[in-house]
């Protein structure tokens, strides 16, 4: 390729969008630096059990992407790294990257001896705090770079049990962070999203009742690497639920919360309904919706799930959820029947939406945002946004617009070089 700029493309965020942007650019012959805040790449997608509409595991595509990352000599991945400062330079951006201390270095073989002796337990961020893990551990089964990480803040004072246990001299409790500056020709921001906190939905039981869970948590419950080993169980008593309710637009399409549609929640719930029916065939699943949004061929998922015995889709937004004997009571109007329902469920999944990670933060690179915190391309500054940082969308769309963003960034880089 005729990219004359010798400076790399900088991609911030190594979720599916960021990985895609960096890889597509690097495979086109461009140098790329991929910066990720967490200690391993993969972002939100790896926390999903399956993708819709194919109902396939995200780690399948990620396996290919990791192989691509490993093989490509033009790509550099910095994990545990954040943008500290970014200034416009003559040919793009001069970006200071702060790399946090890496207490477990590349000598780690993931043998696990350190985990076994670690006395400190922390809530597992990968499983959204639903279980506890040792302070030193593999962050998740598909973690790449494949190394253990240490939550240093959880270490008991003076403890060096892991250091003593490590045969490979891979742990340095005094490791220091560092900073490096990258002269980037263009930047793609793919900082992703966070789930809308269910605590902000107390009227739907969010944060009040154990058996009201967010869709992202439910995804972990269904995953073999999740806190229950993939068994769908009620958090309150660990029993399999029999009546599961999916409450759509929990916070989305709502001026009191997120005024936009989060674009994925309908399909996420339909997909999760299939998890339930697969594991608990006699379970009754009801999805309460405003509009069933399954664009494109995703319609097939809707058609299939709606036709499944024991699955009902009811038009009507749930207004209130209260505890009742043995479970939860959902109050709504069944719009088609024109009646108020007090529906019973023993597990409620709130289909919460996506909040742009740019929202509320001091935006890096001075990126422009809309009122909802989604980033806006700035071609003049060779700055492009990809994935959910740009707008609420599913994985397929993220991959598409990440490739598009990489293309735009390469063109801009070439122009300004």
């Amino acid at each position, binding site marked *: 390729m005729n990219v004359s700029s010798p400076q790399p493309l900088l991609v911030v965020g190594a979720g599916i969008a960021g990985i895609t942007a960096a890889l597509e650019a690097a495979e086109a012959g461009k140098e790329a630096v991929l910066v990720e805040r967490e200690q391993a790449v993969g972002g939100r997608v790896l926390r999903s059990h399956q993708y819709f*509409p194919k109902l396939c595991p995200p780690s399948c595509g990620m*396996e290919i992407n990791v192989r691509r990352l490993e093989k490509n000599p033009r790509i550099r991945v910095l994990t545990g790294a954040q943008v500290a400062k970014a200034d416009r330079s003559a040919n793009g951006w001069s970006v200071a990257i702060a790399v946090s201390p890496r207490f477990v270095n590349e000598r780690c073989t993931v043998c696990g001896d350190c985990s076994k002796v670690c006395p400190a337990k922390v809530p597992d961020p990968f499983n959204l705090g639903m279980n506890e893990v040792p302070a030193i551990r593999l962050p998740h089964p598909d973690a790449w770079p494949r190394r253990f990480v240490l939550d240093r803040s959880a270490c008991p004072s003076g403890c060096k049990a892991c250091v003593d246990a490590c045969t*490979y001299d891979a742990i340095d409790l005094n490791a220091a962070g560092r900073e490096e500056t990258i002269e980037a020709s263009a930047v793609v921001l793919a900082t992703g999203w966070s789930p809308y906190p269910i605590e902000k939905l107390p009227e739907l039981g969010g944060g009040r009742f154990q058996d009201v869970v967010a869709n992202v948590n439910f995804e972990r419950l269904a995953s073999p690497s999740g806190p229950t080993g993939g068994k769908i169980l009620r958090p309150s008593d660990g029993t399999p639920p029999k009546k599961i309710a999916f409450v759509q637009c929990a916070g989305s399409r709502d001026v009191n919360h997120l005024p936009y549609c989060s674009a994925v929640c309908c399909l996420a719930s339909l997909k999760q309904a299939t998890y339930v029916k697969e594991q608990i065939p006699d379970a009754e699943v009801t999805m309460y919706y405003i509009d069933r949004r399954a664009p494109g061929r995703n319609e097939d998922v809707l058609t299939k799930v709606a036709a499944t015995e024991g699955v009902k889709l009811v038009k009507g937004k749930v207004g209130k959820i209260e505890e009742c004997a043995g479970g939860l009571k959902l109050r709504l109007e069944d719009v088609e029947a024109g009646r108020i329902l007090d529906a019973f469920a023993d597990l409620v999944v709130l289909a919460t939406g996506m909040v742009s990670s740019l929202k509320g933060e001091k935006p890096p690179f001075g990126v422009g945002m809309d009122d909802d915190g989604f980033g806006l391309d700035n071609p003049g500054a060779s700055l492009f946004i990809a994935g959910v940082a740009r707008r609420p969308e599913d994985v397929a769309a993220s991959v598409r617009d990440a490739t598009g963003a990489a293309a735009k960034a390469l063109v801009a880089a070439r122009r300004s070089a």
Partner: protein
Amino acid sequence: MEKIGLFLCTGCEIGAAIKTDGLESLAKKGGAKSVVMHPFLCSEEGVAAIRKAVDDGSVDSVLIAACSPRAKTAEFRFDPLKVSVERIGLREQVAWSHPHGEEDTQMLAEDLLRMGLVRIKKNILPKPLAETIEKTVLVVGGGVAGLSAAKAAAGMGHPVVLVESSARLGGSMAGVKDAAPEQPPYGELHKNTIGELISAVQGNASVRVLLQARTVHIAGQPGQFTVDVESPSGKETFLAGAIVQATGASPYDATKLGDLGYGLTPDVVTSVDLDRMIAKGEIRRPSDGKPPRRILFVQCAGSRDPAHLPYCSSECCVTTLRQVAAVHRDLPGMECAVVYRDMRTPGQMEHFYQAVQEQPGSMFTRGEVAKVEKGPEGNLVVRLKDSLLGPDAALQADLVVLAVGMIPNSADSEAIRALRDARVGAEKGDSDVQRAHAAKVAEELAFHEGTEILNLEYRQGPDLPVLRYKFSDSHYICFPYETRRTGIYAAGTVRAPMDAAQAAEDGWGAGLKTVQCISAATRGEAVHPRAGDISVADFSLQRCTQCKRCTEECPFGAINEDVKYTPQYNPMRCRRCGICMGCCPERIINFPEYSVDAVGSMVKAIEVPDELDEKPRVVAFLCENDALPALDEAAARRLSWNPWVRVIPVRCLGAVNVIWIADAMARGIDGVLLIGCRKGDDYQCHYMTGSELANKRMENIQETLTRLKLDSTRVRILEIGRNEFDRIPQIFAEFEKVIEETGPNPMKGF
């Protein structure tokens, strides 16, 4: 390879699990020139030891017996042009998954070592391609996606030829006045910027636009496509390195929508018709030319309907909102009633939905149109069912607009191919019955005649293979651009239903993919999913029987045929999956470091104990993308499984040659497992059809078994998800039970 160096790691419990001294002598016996044992092979010191041996020329191939080939890849990577590397996953397959110090564990490790040794012995160093690569990008289709792709490729320094079949650029967005908002605050109509895009492309010196033109013939491979284009200025031939197909979609044929009143009066129109009226600035009733007072929009006209288009066309809801906003702007006070099933305004389009709702005269209801009738005043009466207005509401309207869905402008390559074959068969078939059958097939497929778009000279048909609903085939979630024709990328609505803004993005992405493909070809590397692979297949054509299996089965159509059906391999179309290798009965297709002989030798290297030892043996071929990682994960969790299983990773189940199974049976191995990815409509196979083909080949395998007088239960093919590590021990245990019931392989000891 000749000078094999075995590097045996004893760390990560390997040293504790097995007697490594035994392995050392075994390796020497098996032909290893040198054996280095290291307690921490992936450390700097360990890697330095390997590097030293490579650099001083004492070894030409490195057999690393340590962790899984998926682990520590950076540490154990050496120049593939200089040294051959194979890896034995002793840690995952032995130390972490089997009891330490036991006889079975030791036997397993020894077998794995034997297998590794014979495998690497068969490897040869690859000779990379060095071809002349054309940089020009061909874009077929001049709509939003095609124009964007052209802009992208040209922006990255590539010459572009854009071929558009009509007389003007812009596709379905040309002649549309407004665009849905793409920028905040998302409440107002934006100007349709297709004109600017057209000017940018036309004004770009790197882009040559050919209007009223068609690609009549495309031959060759990525980096070297020869393209013939016919246009009013004549026929011309040029070279292209890669291709974007952005041929868009057509509105669904409204004449099939009589149920929704189309054809009843001229006042039932499609959304495309209304766009024309809006562009002309004359929103009128076609029947009498008067401005309507109330327009009723019917959503999902043809979409989400098994009788028409089962899928959602994705953009119609927002298109209707755009049109309602335009109507309110041009004819204030007009009533616009929208009847929808579900309003689909994802993301920030929700803001647009609300803004349009707030415009005076906007009315929305969920419901379905039951019937459209003529009204008494020359207007229309629309009867709704299950609407929110009541179970059987009826409403008068002056104009009814059907928001019609989209059908991709694709060609069903496989059907066209079948039609062509049938025509030949009808003429040259061996018997009357065959000719008659072929003629019948040809008649049924006749409607595909003349639907070709790209006119590829590919054995498997002239166009991109399509998925259900005729959108082009790809791994549309993770790798949406990866079609089944290397170097040819689908973009825009021919790939999936999408709106104009998304099609533009898609065009940009496809533009990058063409540049990437050309870049990889220049480096002599494969593209996705084995990006960077520099080895290519070798066809020993002197032994070819012209059976056509490879030319039929290659998922990427990489192999053409000459007139005698001899395969003609196009290395730059090749994705290195090895499916051709798997299907070849003569075993003449091989890769330098991945051959029928090499894997067959691995099978044959397995020591099969005597029947009296009651230690059955199972060979499991595992897909290296999904099944092998699942196995590694099971090991990482220290799950344990049957020690009699010998795992051989393969690039794809489709790359498993039946001869390996025959070899295993002949060797006295009791059973063979093939574990790979999901097949079918929602396939997960990264080579698209590999799993499907492997399953089809099972029939042949059953024949082989019968011929060998063996029970067919000895071979089983299974699907596993990348995340289903917990099923690994279970699968092996269940298969062990089957083998036990079937009894030992009678060929043992022969």
